């Protein structure tokens, strides 16, 4: 084991990789949340035709592996000349965008389901009270249901962030240098698979533990535990 080489060359590469992983994760879970809000609301609608579209979306993205979705976006779409000629190609030609788009759409499906559960968990009495006070449907949704649902959904959302962190490990397959991408490239030169997989594991574990603590702190601040109702 050449420790000098490790600290000068390979460790900085691993840290770069951790940066890429965290950046992808942060953007995807925020963008995914934004995309999930309309999906989750439509999914909780009482009208079947409003439910149908988000339902199919969620069914597709939760029913297939992320790796497959990534390959569909990255390799699949470039099969079509029309896609390669369109403005979208400016983004789709870049693996970073492909990974970001796929991760966002994937996590949005899961977050939408979390939101639906949370919206349905808001006590009916509160919604009725808001309506009785003369709030319109949309006002009740904006001021009563969503803020309430947000706090109910927080533990499940933090769980989803951790799951996405781990799921993001497949993006190296489309040439990105995230933690896994750096790890595999280093192993390709050092042939020390056991050691570098172990180090990669430590990186992920550390990120998981830190994220868990951050969310626990936020949940504590928002007194989420008082709101679960179960």
């Amino acid at each position, binding site marked *: 084991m050449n420790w000098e080489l490790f600290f000068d060359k390979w460790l900085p590469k691993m840290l770069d990789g951790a940066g890429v992983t965290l950046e992808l994760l942060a953007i995807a879970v925020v963008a995914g949340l934004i995309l999930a809000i309309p999906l989750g609301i439509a999914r909780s609608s009482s009208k079947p035709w409003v439910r149908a579209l988000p339902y199919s979306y969620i069914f597709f993205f939760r029913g297939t592996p992320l790796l497959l979705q990534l390959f569909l976006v990255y*390799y699949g779409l*470039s099969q079509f000349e029309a896609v*390669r000629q369109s403005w979208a*190609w400016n983004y789709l*030609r*870049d*693996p970073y965008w492909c990974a970001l788009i796929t991760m966002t759409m994937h996590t949005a499906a899961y977050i939408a389901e979390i939101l639906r559960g949370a919206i349905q968990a808001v006590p009916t009495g509160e919604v009725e009270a808001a309506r009785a006070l003369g709030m319109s449907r949309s006002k009740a949704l904006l001021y009563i249901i969503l803020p309430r649902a947000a706090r109910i959904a927080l533990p499940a959302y933090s769980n989803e962030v951790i799951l996405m962190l781990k799921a993001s490990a497949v993006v190296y*397959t489309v*040439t990105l240098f995230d933690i896994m*991408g750096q790890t*595999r*490239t280093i*192993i*390709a*030169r050092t*042939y020390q*698979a056991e050691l570098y997989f172990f180090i990669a594991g430590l990186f992920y574990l550390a990120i998981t533990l830190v994220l868990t603590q951050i969310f626990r702190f936020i949940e504590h601040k928002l007194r989420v535990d008082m709101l679960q109702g179960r």
Partner: protein
Amino acid sequence: MRHYKKILLAAAATLAFGTQAIAADKIKLGTEGAYPPFNLIDASGAVVGFDIEVGQALCAKMGSECEVVTSDWDGIIPALNAKKFDMIIASMSITDERKQAVDFTDPYYTNKLQFIAPKSADFDTETESLKGKIIGAQRATIAGQWLEDNLADTVTIKLYDTQENAYLDLSSGRLDGVLGDKFVNWEWLKSEAGKDFEFKGDPVFENDKIGIAIRKGEDDLRNKLNQAIKDIVADGTYKKINDKYFPFSIY
């Protein structure tokens, strides 16, 4: 309520059959299966190509029974050392880095590295004019390492798990060029997908010797393989295989 009993039984069975002890009488050839024309998987699932035919000719000369096993390229040396197979015949360049992990036989062909790019592109292989271009190569190949060692600050390097994925991205326009083995590039340029592309500049790296990798210290096998390579070159078997794939000699 007997489900869990069945499950326990099934689990025990899985453990029992899951680990495989490799019988010693058969030689296992490890290859990648994604590197045409040297090794590839056809529609029937069979592994075919130049490497495979050379490997089988060598086995025939040594009088051994051989079986072909595929592995992904990144993990092919670890897999050899894990005894998942006994030799790698997968167009592997003999390099000092690899020699620390495995032993090599005498070379069975000689490779060069050369850029390919769209015919329409103004593509010069001088370092200065490569600036800012996106170049693809396969991870853990000498092409990938050559790029990292020589052009890391000049071009954006993208590394792929398979050579085929690099070609897919070249034809979709994600890459400005690909650096790869000359003969593999040559094969791809001949194909339908490669018709709008061509070699650019002279080979950037020549005299790249391709050998068969075996585990360290297995000198018996290495000596037998070296003798067999000499034999198939001498008796014309090698030339027959060569001519089937290339109209020029690659030895």
